[in-house]
């Protein structure tokens, strides 16, 4: 025993090296690879558990009214942050509705707009674009998908926001809501438009793949019956690709939900719930989604009460994104019949 302990490393390393360098048996290869694959599931489970455990105080102190509205959410976040100094224990009081509402507005707005653009653009690319334009569009779409969100945010905050603030919002409109909120140009509409540009390529790629994989016989059969090319695309191909369109919308929603940096730069960063009853002013009102709130308050992540509140935001995002990813994955399954998994 003692001799073994005296010289453990060379012998151990040698035998270890021998086992690894020897050609692997099938059994072992399958086990090792399978174990690595399963680590993904362990990781996801760990992610859910850790984030929720850390976020629990915020949820348990507020109950379901966490999701409700009431009061100024920025004030509440400040109070939570400052409650460490008062000595009366931690404050967790939070009504997160303005942030949730901001998330819903930006996400739904961008997905609806983006889906319309992506659908028409996909039909265009697959059927109507001249060859030279098709060759241009392929790198264009990849470029739009590749541009980092911080660059979108930079262009937004330095170009689009000042333009909207100086030219599109009249002084009268600014004055009309000045007692509630300042209209600077950093607004819901800018956030939605830039977010649309960011998520359209994701949807476009999925929809184009699906339209291309529609069996040729179906479209040719319709064309042989004298249906024009637009109707063939619209009534046959687009309908056949419906699962892909659903999957595209769902996956783009997940992406839009989690966009943080760009939105924290252009959405105005005020925990304000834009009110649709304000008419056109509604589009120019600032907001701030959940993800952007986490970035804005990132300094406080290690300070318990506000940190836990921010973890709670992350937990909400995590659960929504997980459900959306799973839904998108399920929606894509029928497509595999035609051999267009992607």
């Amino acid at each position, binding site marked *: 025993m003692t001799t073994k302990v005296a010289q453990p490393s060379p012998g151990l390393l040698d035998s270890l090296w021998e086992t690894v360098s020897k050609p692997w048996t099938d059994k072992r290869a399958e086990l090792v690879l399978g174990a690595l694959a399963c680590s993904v599931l362990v990781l996801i489970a760990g992610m859910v558990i850790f984030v929720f455990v850390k976020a629990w105080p915020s949820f348990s102190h507020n109950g379901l009214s966490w999701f409700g509205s009431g009061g100024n959410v920025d004030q509440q976040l400040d109070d939570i942050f400052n409650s460490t100094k008062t000595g009366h224990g931690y404050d967790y009081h939070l009504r997160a509705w303005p942030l949730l509402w901001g998330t819903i507005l930006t996400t739904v707005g961008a997905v609806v707009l983006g889906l319309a653009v992506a659908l*028409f653009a996909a039909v265009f690319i697959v059927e109507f674009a001249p060859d030279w334009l098709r060759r241009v569009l392929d790198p264009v779409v990849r470029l739009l998908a590749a541009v980092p969100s911080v660059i979108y945010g930079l262009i937004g905050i330095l170009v689009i926001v000042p333009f909207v603030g100086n030219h599109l919002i009249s002084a009268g409109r600014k004055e009309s809501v000045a007692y509630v909120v300042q209209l600077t140009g950093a607004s819901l509409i800018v956030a939605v438009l830039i977010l649309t540009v960011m998520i359209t390529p994701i949807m476009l790629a999925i929809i184009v793949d699906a339209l291309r994989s529609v069996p040729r016989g179906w479209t040719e059969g319709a064309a042989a019956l004298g249906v024009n090319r637009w109707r063939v695309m619209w009534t046959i191909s687009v309908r056949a690709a419906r699962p892909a369109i659903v999957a595209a919308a769902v996956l783009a929603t997940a992406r839009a939900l989690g966009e943080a940096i760009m939105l924290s730069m252009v959405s105005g960063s005020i925990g304000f719930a834009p009110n649709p009853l304000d008419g056109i002013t509604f589009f120019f009102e600032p907001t701030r989604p959940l993800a952007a709130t986490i970035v804005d308050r990132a300094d406080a992540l290690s300070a318990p009460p506000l940190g836990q509140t921010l973890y709670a935001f992350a937990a909400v995002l995590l659960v929504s994104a997980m459900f959306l990813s799973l839904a998108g994955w399920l929606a894509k399954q029928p497509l595999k019949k035609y051999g267009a998994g992607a």
Partner: protein
Amino acid sequence: MGRESTSSWPLIDRIGLGLAWAAGLLLCLVASAIVIYMLVRGVQFLRPGLLFSHPQPELDQTKSGGFLDPLLGTFILTVLGTTLAILPGVSIAVWLSEYARPFWLARAVESGVEVVAGTPSIVLAIFGLIIFSQRLFAPFSFTAEGGAVFGRSFFAAGAMMALIALPLIVGATREALQAIPRHVREASYALGKTKAATIRRVLLPTARPGIATGTALGMGRIAGDTAIVVILLGASLQLSSQGSGPILSTLRGTGSTLTSYVYNNSPAGEGNAPEKAYAAAFVLLLIVITLNFAVDLISRRRSAPAWNT
């Protein structure tokens, strides 16, 4: 389908066609606007000196230096993230396409990869912060005086970046493996090779362009990600290493990348130096575009596999 005149189409169809053209041209317009604008600003503000000088915490923009450290940070983080992602990524892809037993487990892993792909990077950043703040992971960052683990370092950020690259590597590798015809595998078995040897000697070499494609895409995503950097890299302007040793200390230390440099120098951050932000954003855009279109070079260089001739 032959070209037919659209003048005989019903009005609604012609409107639809017009919208399709509009959508296609709109995308081209937006993309060219972004590229041209960034190019003009880049040429206007990028000076070679910016690339080679350290950033300084000065309000005066003539003294605040360049972005050498963020550039190095982007490089370190990209390499670290892909290095960590490539082995598990390829393993998962091989398992999913070659073994995938039991069936339910394979479906679960497949959807699990989708879930990782769909998780917002800000949530990954939060998860990373929680994990790396645990006492167990103290060696990966540093421990503050009160005994609290800081949890922010190149290691922490790199590990979470690996999760961003992972789904891309899995997807590209799987696609490449599935494109290999069955009879290639059968020929290998017929020569007496085991399945494991077939994977190692036949399938993986053939799938190499696919793996490279996924890696390049993953690198592009890592270089462009901001949320993880802002939260997990400690946001120190210069690379500040922890402890001793040449490489490990840097990886344990904090720093910044081009993305966080752009963010901090935009009006949203503290720096408020749009010129520097534009210059850094231009460099970042070049890096990301290069990585994304490197994919084309990889796939173009791939000669047609022998069994297709």
